[in-house]
């Protein structure tokens, strides 16, 4: 009887414990619709490039800084080597569209109102970004954003482009 109770407690604990993608693990693939256009995109489309997957939302304060700054980041590296995929997690897509009108971006923005991709990555905070190498392996994870984080990102991207 006590064994059964212990098993039940362990099960509930396991179900509630968050799974998170750590650096070194393969990035979970996804296929999502963009905010502009009708053609869906998936992470595997970018295989062979270094990819920055960034999770954002209109209600996320630091995202107001990070999304515009990523425009320059994309411009700093060749499009054949590096791509940014920004995944909007607003439950109401209209909020995200208003945000994108206010902060125009030059890279791919995909929508995930259900949040299942965020779930698959096991986000620990907002915003979160994952730097993925050419083989689809997560190399760096950043939680939160400050403008000076861009310098570290640049170094990491340059290193990943150079290694393969």
């Amino acid at each position, binding site marked *: 009887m006590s064994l059964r109770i212990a098993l039940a407690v362990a099960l509930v604990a396991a179900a509630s414990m968050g799974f998170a993608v750590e650096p070194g693990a393969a990035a979970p693939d996804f296929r999502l619709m963009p905010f502009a256009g009708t053609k869906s995109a998936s992470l595997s489309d970018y295989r062979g490039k270094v990819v920055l997957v960034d999770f954002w939302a*209109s209600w996320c304060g630091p995202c107001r800084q990070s999304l515009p700054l990523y425009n320059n980041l994309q411009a700093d590296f060749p499009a054949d080597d590096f791509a940014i995929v920004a995944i909007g997690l607003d439950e*109401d897509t209209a909020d995200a569209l208003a945000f994108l009108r206010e902060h125009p971006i030059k890279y791919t923005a995909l929508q995930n109102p259900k949040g299942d991709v*965020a779930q698959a990555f096991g*986000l620990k905070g907002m915003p979160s970004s994952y730097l993925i190498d050419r083989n689809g392996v997560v190399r760096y994870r950043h939680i939160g954003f400050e403008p000076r984080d861009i310098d570290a990102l640049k170094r990491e991207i340059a290193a990943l482009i150079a290694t393969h």
Partner: protein
Amino acid sequence: MRSNAKLRRSSRRIEHALRWVLALAALACLGGCATQTVQPWQRGRLARWDMRWDPDPLQAAMNQHAYFSKEGTSGEIGAAGGGCGCN
């Protein structure tokens, strides 16, 4: 007569068992609340301005000022004032 007493005893036992089942089920439900945490990407609604404790910061500051002017003499909020509302 005797079978009637037996019946009563067994029904009481069932009632007792049911009560335990109910209590355990209620306890299990309580634990269920703890497993449903709000995930970082689900905070959109919580971040809305009308979900704030003080939706209007200016109104809150004015209320606070009136409050400590009135209650200052009793040492309600930190430093005491004269209650004149001039600090």
